């Protein structure tokens, strides 16, 4: 961004631009720099685009180091501390947490596992979905203290090392995401959906299932309607729902779901 009244070293392109847009101002710009009047004029003329010139060359986009060891908090800040030991993605963790700390914040703030997302913090969006003892739950409404002795699986534990889980692969193939923020929750939920269906667990749209006494429930065949209902606890504001359903169908059926790119003309 230009400092006001800096006499810039203009590139040829930039000179050309000023020549095209504001020929009467070019000399002034070269002599004394771009002032506020020029700035506003440029804004209007280019519809708001601004010319900037960069001193520094581009650098690598950073992602700060991933997993930090659990931070040791000064004891004074933990009024009601709870000692906790649980398994997260197969690894035992021993922590001391504030009694108020949710499982979600423990994962994100203490364990560097930021894959589980905070979309609302009130159990209304599903972005924080993780698996606790095999069941999908909302980690934002789960006190870390209540997880003593439990086994937690987060998105970071879904893949096997470098090999993606079939659900992750299906999401990639079918573009089951856009911004990606709800995606970890969607995938954790989706993995659980397959498990629930396998166990014959019903949903609101499952037709009447009249079991004979003592019979084990048979796996539910997941129609699209079933998948949609069972995934409705995971909001996606980008609207990737059709692709999410396609991805889940592909994994559940074991058959590739057709991808169509409709082009005309």
């Amino acid at each position, binding site marked *: *961004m230009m400092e006001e009244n800096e006499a810039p070293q203009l*590139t040829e*392109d930039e000179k050309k*631009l000023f020549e*095209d847009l504001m020929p009467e101002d070019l000399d002034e710009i070269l002599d004394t720099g771009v002032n506020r009047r020029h700035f506003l004029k440029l*804004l*209007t003329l*280019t*519809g*708001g*685009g*601004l*010319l*900037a010139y*960069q001193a520094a060359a*581009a650098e690598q*986009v*950073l*992602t700060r180091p991933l997993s*930090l060891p659990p*931070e040791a908090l*000064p004891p*004074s*800040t933990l009024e009601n501390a709870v000692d906790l030991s649980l398994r997260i993605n197969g690894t035992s963790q021993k922590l001391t947490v504030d009694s108020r*700390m949710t499982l979600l914040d423990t994962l*994100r*703030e203490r364990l560097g*596992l930021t894959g589980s*997302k*905070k*979309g*609302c913090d*009130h159990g*209304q*969006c599903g972005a924080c979905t993780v698996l606790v003892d095999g069941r999908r739950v909302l980690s934002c409404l789960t006190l870390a203290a209540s997880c003593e002795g439990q086994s937690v699986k987060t*998105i970071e534990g879904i893949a096997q090392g470098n090999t993606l889980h079939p659900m*992750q692969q299906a*999401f*990639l193939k079918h*573009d089951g*995401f*856009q*911004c*990606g*923020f709800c995606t970890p929750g969607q*995938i954790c939920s989706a993995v659980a959906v397959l498990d629930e269906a396998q166990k014959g667990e019903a949903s609101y749209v499952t037709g009447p299932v009249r079991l004979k006494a003592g019979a084990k429930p048979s796996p539910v065949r997941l129609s699209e309607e079933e998948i*949609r*209902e069972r995934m*409705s606890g995971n909001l*996606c*504001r*980008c*609207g990737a*729902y059709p692709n999410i359903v396609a991805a889940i169908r592909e994994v559940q059926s074991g058959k590739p779901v057709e*991808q169509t*790119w*409709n*082009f*005309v*003309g």
Partner: protein
Amino acid sequence: MATTHYIGQPTSRVDGRAKVTGQAKYAAEFNAPGLLHGVVVSSAIAKGKITHLDANEALQLEGVLQVFSHQNRPDLAWLDLSYKDMTAPGGSPFRPFYDEKILFNQQPVALVVAETFELARYAATLVRVQYESEEPTTSLEANLDDLYTPVSFKLGYQKPKSRGDFKAAFDQATTRIESEYYHGAEHHNPMEMHASTVFYEENGSLTIYDKTQGVLNSQHYVSMVFGLSKKNVRVLSPFVGGAFGSGLRPQYQLFMAVLAALELKRSVKVVLTRQQMFSFGHRPVTMQQVAIGATFDGKLEAIRHAAYSETSTFEDYVENIVNWSGMMYSCPNVEQEYKLVQLDMYTPLDMRSPGAATGVHALECAMDELAYKLNIDPLELRLRNYAEEEPSEEKPFSSKALRECYQQGAERFGWANRNPEPRSTKDGTALIGWGMATGMWDAMQMPTRATATLTSDGKLTVGSATADIGTGTYTIMTQIAAEMLGLPLENVTAQLGDSSLPLAFVEGGSATAASVGTAVTYVCEKIQKKLLKLAQAANNSPFAKAKLKDVTFSEGYLRLRSDATVAVSLTELMQQNSINTLEEKATALPKLLKQSKYARNTHSAVFVEVRVDEALGSILVTRVVSAIAAGRILNPKTARSQILGGVVWGISMALEEDTFMDHTYGRFMNHNLAEYHVAVNADIRDIDVIFVEEQDTIASPIGVKGVGEIGLVGVSAAVANAIFHATGKRVRDLPITLDKLL
């Protein structure tokens, strides 16, 4: 076909793996030891002033470092201009903590900074704020006497334009309709709550991770407001959890995090709550009147479109609402009016297809009403008034394959089988209805710069300070660069979301693909030129006489077009010349003079089927076909997702979204995701997307127009029209909830 051909291919997102494994980091997810947490305290009243703010109880908690408010803020920039960001409307931008005045409900009044989130959140409840409250004015409907015509400047705003003599033509028209339409406030509600993490570096400079649609915009704002040199403010935003307009302007958590970091000389993170996501901008409540006069055979003679909307008391927020009525159809007489009322609320904020989502809804519902009055098929009515030239400016369209959209969409949908009679199609307890609408949006190209760096190991990096808010920017940048230099995708890295990268505009207006795509194309062309030069430098080079158009880049090789066996690998070329790095910068400027001679827009035709429970009124959109003409499609996979998202938004807008303002308190009451309803998975059924390709190098040199917003425009009208067809009930206010059909 070369294996390094990517443009136009349904390429999977290059950032996909990071997203599906939870590796992608968003603004609130960058940690460091000692990072402090800030929680914002929001006003409980809409208008008045703070008479008493006592932070003592909060400060007494061990681990709470400070409570910032108007009482202890440092001196900041004085001029309004310093607070204006790139997309600010006219007026005075809101200054957090400026003084004791309360201008809108949920106004941020304090920031509590503590060592942990739990502490900060609790301490925030201990900040005792007393108010002297005044009765707020928050109702558009109750204050229509105060309507005024805005004169404001806002990026992209165009004043409504009238032509001909509406009154005379309308009075003489054989068929007339006049209707009023309404929609309430809507909020963006991206999945990611707004957050800023400010790292206070050892030398006092700031590295900021901000949830934004434009890192340069945030950087500009911070440096101006806090009087910092840009060299000492770096803003990063590698991943954004959706924005839809909410990140076009820096939001107050950025201000707060920077303020705290500078004052405490510590790193600070501030994350807004979901409730607070309803406190800084929305799609404004809008009342519209549309009157259309036509001949008996459906030729439009007169259109009047008026829109009345709301803004804050400190900024004039404007949208292009009524303008579309003058642009979409052939009609000699058009009258347009657009007025605002100032209310005690925060300034509305561009929200996906701002203006068009609103205005085209009204127009397309009115067209449907007219079709019924005339007894003409709704699609046929559109065709009879097709505008070959853009009628409001009398310019040719740079491209407009809308006829194809109508045709292809109708055919895919089966529109020809439609029985026009409302309530004619039943299925058990359900009434089935079919509706359609036209959509239109802008196709813009903004000045953009990009860099490219090719290393001798065959790896290419391209960069620009643009954003990827879920649109797929990373991917299209990678595709273009890879194809231009004939490198495999995995050898190419796109960089964005970094204020130290070259100029790019905020990601908005659906302009990014065209703008950044062109810049990446230009900069890669420069690299191509350099490589060709290197090839020519060799003794007896077979490339000696070749120009750029005589060669191809593919599969890692530079070849002669006329003889593919004449080839040299790029890595060899560089190594032979002892060059480790080739670097280039390019500026892509829109050819304004040429572009200004044309109307540049995207177009769509959308067809919707609804099922309405006859007795209970519940509505389900069972089928949608959306046919889109948006120039050249760089990536049909990601482009289709954009349109799907737009259609989902349209359904959500039509049936569910409404932020309810209780005027007694001047407060949005359903400010959470349980009671503000966005579409869930079960609301969405079949959506079919058709792209009608257009060749258009005027809209942008690479033929791209952008698809971020066109997918939404017109959808809500098509849904409303389908509901009319199903039930015979014309519902003119959104959302169409089941009670309106009982």
